[in-house]
Every structure is written in C-alpha cells, then in structure tokens.
C-alpha cells in the first residue's frame, strides 16, 4: 500500500489540487488508467517486447541479477524474469476480464428474472446463498484436483462464487425499480416481459454493475495469483505472476527481485483497477450527480 500513500501525498501538493471547490480531482484516476493501459499494452505486445522466450531455460545463467542481457535478472532455471512478468500479465488480465464478463453476464440474467418473479426469487436466492458459502480457494483446489489445472478450470472456480454477489446487486436494483410507475406504464402499454426487463429494468443496473465489475476483476486477478502461488492454479511452467513468485520464494534471500517485480506488477494492477472502480462509483452515483447539478 506504499503506492497509495505516496499518491495520497502527491495529491495534497498544491499543483494537483483542482480549482473548483467541489470538483473531485481526476489526477489519481488518470494515473490508475495509465497504469492499467500500460499493463494491457504490455500484455498484448508481450511477444514483441520480450527479450527472451519466457519458457526457455539457460542453465548457465541461473539466478543472475539485472544486467544487459536479463533486464530484471533471471530465475533459478535461467529464464528471463522480465519476459516472464510480461507474459504473466496476459494470464492475469485474461482471467480477470473473463471472470468479470461471465459472472456479470450470468448474474445479470439471474438477478433480473429473480427480482421480477417473487416465486422464483425465494428459490434462486437460497441457491445463491449456498453458492456464497463456498470459499473460492477451496472450490478451485477441488476443481483443479478433479480436472487438472488449466486457465478454464481456474476461471470457473473464480467465477462461480462471484455470481451470487452480482445476482444480489441486480436483484436489489430490480426490486426497487419495478415499483416505478414507468414500469407499470409499460405493463399497461402491453409490453412483453422480456421487453420490460431489458428496456426498463436492465439500464438501472448498469451503473452499479460497472462498479461491481471492477471489484470482481481485481479480486479475480488476485485469486488467480494466490492459486498459482499455492500451486493449485495454471500449470507451473506457464508464466503467471503467482507462479513466478511461488518459484522465487525459495530464493528470496539471494534473489529478492523474483518476488519483487511480479508482486509490484500485481499490486499496481489491482490498485489501479480498484481506484478506477471507486471513481466510477463516485461518477455514477446519482447523489453525487445531484450535488454537482445543484451548484
């Protein structure tokens, strides 16, 4: 969290203070967006930016400190740390994004329907309560030991426990929105149920979903790293931030960079996603908007 206090201190400097008394500064969100954009660019351009094949072992160059050939040094098998961290971003972002899209998609559908039909609601919500009781780490370890480690099993294990959270959110929004007279007006206008759900209720859920989505994404990336670190994630030779750190753990005292660089990448990535989520929440909060408008 050193980053956040540093950023906080920077924020208090007069040059970053915006002039308007009420306007929130967009400096931190801008920085977060920049970090995230860089991470995405690095992940996409990894094959071109990498100096080595991230899997290639060079027994003669084991545990080298940073030098011209190995920008961040090399690991215990003589693999280039810089290239491995670059490629690690791919897995992290893919799982983060994938888990978010799937859990938000499924959660939105279940939440809309369950918020609108009372009978269904009672049943669906009990199932969701049960799902929420499953710890995602245990589920992941169970799934991985049953089916073997792959990106897809990890994503499945991360997505399932996130769905109930999305369902609860969507349902609560629908419960209040369906009492709105404009929904009754749509019923009176003879609109079909899917149309009412999609046209009149769904848009209400978008703002909170965007915010929830960023948190799902951040937590998915973190969970993936933890699973890799525990050895229950993507197979160990694949470069992921968690895997790199797990392997580097044994050499922590002689080669701390093996933990430091992937760890820094991981925390910066998650921090910036969370900061963007907070900004989205503030911008999309109707109360904030009203305060802005009242000025």
């Amino acid at each position, binding site marked *: 969290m050193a980053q956040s206090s540093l950023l906080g201190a920077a924020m208090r400097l007069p040059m970053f203070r915006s002039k308007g*008394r009420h306007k929130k500064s967009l400096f931190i969100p801008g920085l977060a967006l920049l970090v995230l954009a860089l991470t995405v660019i690095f992940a996409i351009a990894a094959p071109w930016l990498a100096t080595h094949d991230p899997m290639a072992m060079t027994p003669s160059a084991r545990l080298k400190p940073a030098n011209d050939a190995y920008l961040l040094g090399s690991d215990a098998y003589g693999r280039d740390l810089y290239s491995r961290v670059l490629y690690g971003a791919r897995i992290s972002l893919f799982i983060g994004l994938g888990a978010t899209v799937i859990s938000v998609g499924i959660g939105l559908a279940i939440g809309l329907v369950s918020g609108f039909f009372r009978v269904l609601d009672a049943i669906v919500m009990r199932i969701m309560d049960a799902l929420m009781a499953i710890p995602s780490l245990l589920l992941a370890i169970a799934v991985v030991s049953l089916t073997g480690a792959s990106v897809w099993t990890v994503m499945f294990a991360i997505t399932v426990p996130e769905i109930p959270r999305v369902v609860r959110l969507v349902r609560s929004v629908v419960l209040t929105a369906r009492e*709105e*007279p*404009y929904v*009754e*007006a*749509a*019923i*009176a*206008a*003879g*609109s*079909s149920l899917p*149309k009412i759900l999609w*046209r*009149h209720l769904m*848009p209400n859920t978008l703002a909170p979903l965007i915010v929830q989505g960023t948190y799902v994404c951040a937590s998915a990336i973190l969970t993936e790293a933890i699973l890799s670190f525990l050895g229950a994630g993507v197979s160990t030779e694949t470069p992921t931030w968690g895997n790199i750190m797990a392997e580097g753990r044994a050499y922590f005292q002689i080669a701390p960079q093996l933990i430091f660089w992937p760890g820094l990448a991981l925390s910066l990535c998650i921090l910036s996603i969370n900061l963007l989520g907070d900004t989205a929440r503030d911008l999309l909060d109707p109360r904030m908007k009203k305060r802005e408008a*009242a*000025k």
Partner: protein
Amino acid sequence: MTKPSFDPTSAPVLEVKDLVIGLTGDDKSSPVLNGISISIRAGETVCLVGESGSGKSVTSLAAMGLLPRQALEPRSGEILFEGEDLLKADAGRMRALRTKSMAMIFQEPMTALNPVLTVGQQICEVLQEHTKLAASDQKKTVLEMMREVHLPDVERIFGSYPHQLSGGQRQRIMIAMALILKPKLLIADEPTTALDVTTQKQILKLIDEMQEKQGTAVLFITHDMGVVAEIADTVYVMNRGNVVENGPIDAILTEPLRDYTRKLLSSVPSLVPRAPRPHGSSEVVLSITELEKVYGKKGWFGKFEAGTKAATDVSFTLKKGRTLGIVGESGSGKSTVARCVMRLIDPTSGSIRIGGQEIADFSRRAIQPHRQHIQMVFQDPYRSLNPRITVGDSIIEGPMNYGVPKAEAMKRARELLSIVGLPDDAIKRYPHQFSGGQRQRIAIARAVAMNPKVLVADEAVSALDVSVQAQVLDLLADMQEKFGIAILFITHDLRVAAQICDDVIVMQKGRVVEYATGHAVLTNPTHTYTRQLIDAAPGRHWDFANFRPLETNAA
C-alpha cells in the same frame, strides 16, 4: 374567516427586509429570493402563498437559520426577530432561539419525527434542552401540552412510536413539540398538505386555537388558496423569488391588483359543480360489478388468510365519452379500484368488463390483447416516464406492441404531441428536459396514442401547481371530446371532481358510500361522510374565480 386577532400597530415579531438569497459562491446567477420584505405581528397569521419554486420555503428556512449553506446564502437584507438580526447571529444563538422563541412544523410529520424514539421522549427532549425542569415535571408538562392539542388517551400516545400514530396525530405531536415552550413565532411549512381534508380542517382549527391561546405569530406557507381563505389575516403572494402582492386577506381575495394573483385565484377550481352535460352515447365501455380486493397472505398449503379489505362491493358503469370521478381520502380504496381496473393488481372477486369483454379472471398473458383499450395517467409525472428513453420512444412503445409499424407510430406520436401543446422537437428529447406539467402532457399523449376506450387518471393533477392543473384538466377534457374517451378520474380533491366529473363515486374505507351525478353529490349529498368531506374543503365559502364569497351554501 378569522377576525383580525392582532394589533396592527404593535411592533412586528419578525421582519424580513429586502432579503436577497442566491446560490452559494455564484454571484452572477439570478437570486433565488429577490429582495423580499415581510412583517408579522404577534397573533397575526401571515400566509405565504405561491406555486412551486416561488421561494416560499426558502424564506422560511432563512428565518429559521436553516438554509443549506453549501447551496444557498443570503447576499443582502436583514431578518429581524424582535429587533435582532438573525443573519448576524451565530449557530449557538440560533439554536437557543429555535424552539424557545421560534418553532417550525413541516409538511410530512413522519420524516420530521425520529422513528426510534417514542413521541413522548421527543417532546421531553425539547424541555431538557431548553429548560431546567425536573424529569417528573417534564412528563407532566408534556402530557398537559398533548391534552391541549386534543390528542386522545395521552398516556398511551406518550409511549407510542411515530409509526403507531395516524398522520393527523403525528402533526398534533409536531405542534405540541413546537409550541411547548410558547414561542413567539411559529413557522408552518405546508403543514396540512400531506393530510386528508377532514384532518386538515382539524389541524387548521388547532393551529388557530393555539395561536389565540398563546398569541403566537404564525407564518403559514401553503400553495392552497382554500387554506389561505380559511386562516390568513395577511397574505403575501410570491412568484419566482419576488413578493408580487401583499395585503389583508379580504383585499387580496376580492380586489387582487396584480395579474399573477388574479391568475392564481381564477385557476382554483370552483366547488360549485359545472352544469351537467347532455347524455351522449349510451355505449357502456367499462362496467364493474361487485369488485372486491382483499390484501392477505397465502398461508401454508396455499390456504388464503384474509387480511385487509381494500375494496368491497364496488360496482359502477362508465359510458363512452363520460367522466366518472372516484373521490375519497387516503385509504378509501380508490387507487385500489383503479389498479384493479388496470389489472396492475389482481382483484379478489367481481367482474371487470371492458366493452363487453370480461377481463377480471384473465391471466397476465391472456390480458395482453385487451390492455390497449384501457390506459392510465399516473400521479407523479416525474416517475411515470422512463428517464432513459426519449419522449417519442416512450409514446410509440405501446402502439408498436400492438403491431403498428414504427414510422406510422412516430407520425401519430408527433401529431399527438402537437395536440397536447408541445413543440415539434419534443419527440427526440428526454423527460428531464420538461416541466412537471409538460411531462403530464406527454403521459397523456402516451395514453391516448393507444386509442383507448377508457383512460384511468389516478390523481393525475394532484402533483401539479394550480395554474398548470387547470391546463391539464382542460387538455383531458379536450382529448375526451376529440377521441370520445371515457375517463375514470381518481382524486381526493372535491374541487377538481366538481369541475370535470359527470358522475361521482364517494368511497370510504373500501366501500362506495355514494354514487350519483356530480351535481347531485356536491349540491345535495345524502351520506354523512360526503357531507363531512364537502364541509372540510378549505375555502368552501369562497368563489375564487369570481373574487367574491359564495352566496349560496354549497352543502
């Protein structure tokens, strides 16, 4: 009408001088209050009357030192309370003055009271804060005060929570709390607007009585000219942050000088029913027989446990091109009937026929083809239009559900918008770009776009200012004439009912107590409840539109 109970030569209790209030930190914007001056003497009732946005509430908040400072700030002028400038007083001084020397009651007593404390505790708190009474004496004082505001069974109510009391009782508690320290000034901000007419009458009487007893100066804020005629000694008419006109009540009501005041007064619908219309078509478009709605819960094994009877044995018929009013106080079941007719809720038993087609026992799916014949205009135009959808798309949604091609539906929407008096570009705009009255016009256009046989208007003009109300009522009448629509008009306001309804149903506690022509119900009521309702209508002795008292008693 009250006799002048105050001494016009005495020094004013509260004097507002050239008060200008504007948006905080924005000197260039036009002020919210533009140099208003008001003075109130002991025992005098001053009514601030005006439509929404006229600045009447801002005035009262400024006097109480309760302006939301991050949004509004005084720019110039002074507010003198017994000679002391309140704008210069600090927070501590204002706190001491409030309740001790000046008190305020609000529109909605439920939100003004703390829901987790008993009302007795809340009144005691005022005494603890401002007096050195011993705890036992506090309770005695409070009980006595509660008796003075005519609360029944004061010992029980002392230990009750706000939600256990009725709206009228809560407002009595608020008044007891406000007056227990015998303040010199009472500010009442729309204190009866959320109450039923019969309760309103009692509360107005109570305020008047307390004022006489304590010699309080009362600043009464209201939008209702009827209430003004009942209680005011002096009237200030406000519009857009200015005092348009002020003077003694009789002068304002009989010889208003300004056009705005004249317009305001002549917009008040008369309690005298309009002349009965000749009978038109004999085609029955809506007939309700023995409709019943019981709210209950499904017990175990699907056994139905009967709960509240919201409507019992309601029967009526509505003919093409006619208007039927359902009048009643809150909880009378009038909205329940409307929602059953719309099949937004399912009636427990009884029959609903639209043009001969029975729809009461149709399932949600089976009702679909018949929905187009019956459309609704809702009370709150700010919530009945989806804020994310353009006006045009809102209007064509219904017709397109019934197979009208989009281009054709749009063409019709454009026609309708011009009929309801909105500009051509309205079709592409969003609801928030329109005022309340305009939105209600859009809602009417949307309902009419379906070519319904019946239009259900549930308190459709209650949320609107009185001048806008008149225009929307005219529009409804226009639409009825043009398209031959029958209107089921739900309202709590007898004045509105008197002006637009051919027939009137009076409901009380879920039952129809009277069902006759509008003329008969209003001039010759047979049921005591109807008589009470008419009797409680504020300002019923006054013919506002013609600036004179009514010669014949309406009852």
